[in-house]
């Protein structure tokens, strides 16, 4: 059985030409970096959009040179809102932590030479790339970007030009982009699942997998079950828009004085299909961050993860429950109070596995020899943001409370903290942690810490006040609050949040600088600079084409063997045979 492992380590020979090595590469490591760079480009665009929105909220009458007409219209504001949400959720939060780092490190961490299906992997990336081009094209088509938000509720999204300037071509491009993205994500999910099930190294039992691998695995299952549903919904929406069907568009709709020829469609049906995908989607964004946080907290506390099995099972539990709570996004849709009650109880039930994870993270760092490196700072920040953002979810899980808060900034604050910024902190932690393995050099620690403090303080300054103005009744999604007295009183708070957003956005330039500057000028990294235990640190830096240079590691123990009594070093790598472990006399 093992003869293959030594004679034919890789399904694909190492590529030689530039195109096959860096562009249409079959190597999961190159594809991982491609995904990461795509997400980096997307996040830059997403941040610029959010800064423009924040600017407009505070100075609604300012002349902007790059906007036709000079002053931003409400439709243009909604266009920014839609594109910000779509780009951030799909092309950043779904792409970077799962497709980016997952692609690069999942095969190495389980001791495989590549993903199970390298060609499918490449196809998946380039389909995502096409989807990204399609969504960017929505900016430039006649009428501009769509205005129906990242959730694209019909009838607004189902009719066409009549409902707004971006609802013609722009919305069509949106659906095309998301459909492509669904296809790409399904291919990726299939690949991840097959790789974890079939390509683990000898000794790499399920309960010896790093928690990052568990997270990518569960996330892939969520993606597999969720993206097909969004794809189906997207096709039906496209037919409503272009073929005159009435799946979602209700009868006798009069839009801008025109009676539309649709019959009896159900807008609520779209909401069900969308959120059946949409709720698992938020876990797709956050679960890889949970895996990374667990991994980093253990490594930099020099302690085994507290409750490894509980952590793995909690992730499965969160994934499972994630499919049964979509209705909590629809409490205000007029659903039966009994359904609302069921969704409410199930939603609060997610608090149980979430609390298991949180307390285990605290238990992990408790009494540890904590090393405050940049990746560790971001892992700690992740826990902080996850708790701060997650707690408001318990309030929103009450239908009665949600009725009051649903359309306010309270919800904006909740989801930005818990799935937006927390997931981004997971991405940052992963970047600082794995950068030396990926590129052979260390990122600057002082710049990393500066970046952390600006981002951490900035995130709280932007999103904490939103809770309070939300409770006070500040409606979300409006382009201009100055004309309404009770909304205008929040303008000073908006100004504070906008200035915080500017500073935080500029602070991200430190990261970009650190990332690209360190490629050439960072300190040379050893093969295992963090003294970590998992398999990626057992191979060369950067890893060779087949990951382990023609041989395969065997795995002898779990992934978090830190500070084992009687052992010389404070860590035991997974691949070290028991007789090779140096013991103190």
């Amino acid at each position: 059985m093992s003869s293959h492992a030594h004679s034919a380590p890789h399904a694909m020979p190492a590529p030689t030409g530039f195109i096959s090595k860096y562009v249409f590469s079959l190597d999961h490591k190159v594809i991982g970096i491609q995904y990461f760079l795509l997400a980096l480009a997307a996040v830059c665009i997403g941040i610029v959009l959010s800064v423009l929105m924040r600017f407009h909220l505070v100075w609604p009458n300012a002349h902007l040179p790059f906007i036709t007409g000079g002053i931003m219209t409400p439709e243009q504001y909604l266009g920014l809102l839609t594109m910000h949400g779509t780009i951030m959720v799909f092309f950043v939060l779904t792409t970077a932590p799962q497709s980016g780092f997952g692609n690069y490190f999942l095969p190495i961490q389980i001791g495989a030479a590549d993903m199970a299906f390298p060609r499918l992997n490449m196809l998946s990336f380039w389909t995502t790339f096409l989807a990204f081009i399609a969504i960017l094209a929505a900016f430039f088509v006649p009428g501009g970007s769509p205005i129906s938000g990242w959730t694209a509720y019909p009838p607004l999204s189902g009719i066409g030009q009549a409902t707004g300037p971006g609802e013609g071509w722009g919305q069509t491009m949106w659906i095309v982009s998301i459909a492509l993205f669904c296809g790409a994500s399904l291919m990726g999910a299939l690949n991840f699942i097959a790789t974890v099930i079939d390509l683990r190294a000898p000794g790499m039992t399920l309960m010896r997998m790093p928690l990052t691998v568990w997270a990518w695995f569960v996330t892939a299952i969520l993606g597999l079950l969720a993206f097909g549903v969004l794809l189906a919904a997207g096709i039906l929406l496209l037919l409503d828009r272009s073929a005159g069907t009435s799946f979602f568009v209700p009868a006798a709709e009069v839009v801008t004085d025109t009676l539309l020829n649709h019959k009896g469609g159900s807008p609520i049906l779209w909401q069900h299909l969308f959120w059946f995908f949409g709720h698992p989607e938020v876990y797709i964004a956050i679960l890889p961050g949970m895996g990374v946080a667990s991994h980093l907290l253990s490594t930099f506390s020099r302690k085994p993860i507290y409750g490894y099995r509980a952590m793995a099972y909690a992730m499965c539990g969160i994934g499972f429950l994630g499919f049964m709570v979509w209705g909590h996004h629809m409490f205000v849709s007029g659903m039966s109070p009994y359904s609302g009650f069921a969704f409410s109880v199930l939603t609060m039930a997610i608090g149980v596995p979430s609390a298991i994870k949180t307390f285990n993270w605290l238990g992990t760092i408790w009494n540890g020899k904590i090393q405050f490196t940049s990746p560790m700072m971001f892992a700690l920040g992740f826990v902080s943001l996850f708790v701060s953002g997650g707690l408001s979810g318990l309030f929103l899980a009450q239908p009665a409370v949600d009725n009051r808060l649903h359309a306010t900034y309270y919800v904006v604050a909740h989801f930005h903290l818990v799935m937006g910024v927390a997931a981004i902190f997971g991405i940052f932690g992963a970047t600082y942690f794995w950068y030396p393995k990926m590129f052979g050099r260390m990122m600057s620690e002082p710049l990393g810490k500066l970046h952390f403090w600006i981002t951490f303080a900035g995130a709280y300054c932007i999103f904490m006040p939103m809770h309070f103005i939300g409770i006070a009744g500040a409606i979300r999604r409006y382009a201009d609050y100055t004309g309404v007295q009770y909304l205008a009183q929040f303008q000073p708070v908006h100004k504070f949040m906008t200035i915080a957003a500017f500073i935080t956005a500029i602070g991200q330039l430190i990261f970009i600088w650190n990332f690209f500057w360190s490629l050439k000028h960072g300190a040379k990294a050893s093969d295992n600079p963090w003294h970590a235990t998992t398999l990626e640190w057992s191979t060369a830096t950067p890893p060779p084409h087949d990951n382990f240079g023609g041989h395969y590691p065997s795995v002898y123990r779990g992934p978090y063997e830190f500070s084992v009594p009687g052992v010389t070093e404070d860590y035991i790598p997974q691949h070290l045979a028991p007789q090779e472990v140096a013991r103190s006399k």
Partner: protein
Amino acid sequence: MPIVTVTDVVEIIEPKRQGPSGPGKPPRGFGGGGDGSGAGSPGRQRAYVTGMTVALGGILMFFMALVSAYIVRKGAGTDWNSLIVPRILWVNTAILIVSSFTISRARRDFLRDDLPNFRHWWYVTTALGFLFLIGQLIAWRQLRAAGVYLDSNPSSSFFYVFTAAHGLHILGGLAALLAVAFHKGRRLTLATSSNVVAMYWHFMDGLWVFLFLLLTLGR
């Protein structure tokens, strides 16, 4: 019972799995490990079976989303006019069910190393697949001749969506059947490729029977 057939075949392909190893003990593969991932290695061949199983899960979710939309939409509006499906659909359904038997027959011949018979039944399956698609196109033409279009009624909208989505999947299956028929054998062994294509084909058959029942009994 397509699912049962699939499981049977999987067991033949898969090597015996070893139990999990305790901490610190010498390495033992559990499911995954032990066979590396070189081309043609058992691990990679097995990954194709896993990959197909997983892919079918994703496809099932796609169709179930459409099916639940069908059920909800039917109950939601007052404008639902039940569609009487064209009679040729009964013939098409029979053809697809027979093709499941022929592909099973082909697999059995393959496992007995009877390659000529394998190819024979494999070609028969491919031909039946094409026949099914032609039958579906005829059904569309009949509906069009009767003035039933995509946007005539939600029931007809769903009919076209279901048959088109399923037809595209059958088209993909036909491409795969042909690819196996003209197999050159590089990354995939014929055992694996014929196995995963048969899994897919049975699934598409079962899925169609379900959709057909939905469109006839559940209209």
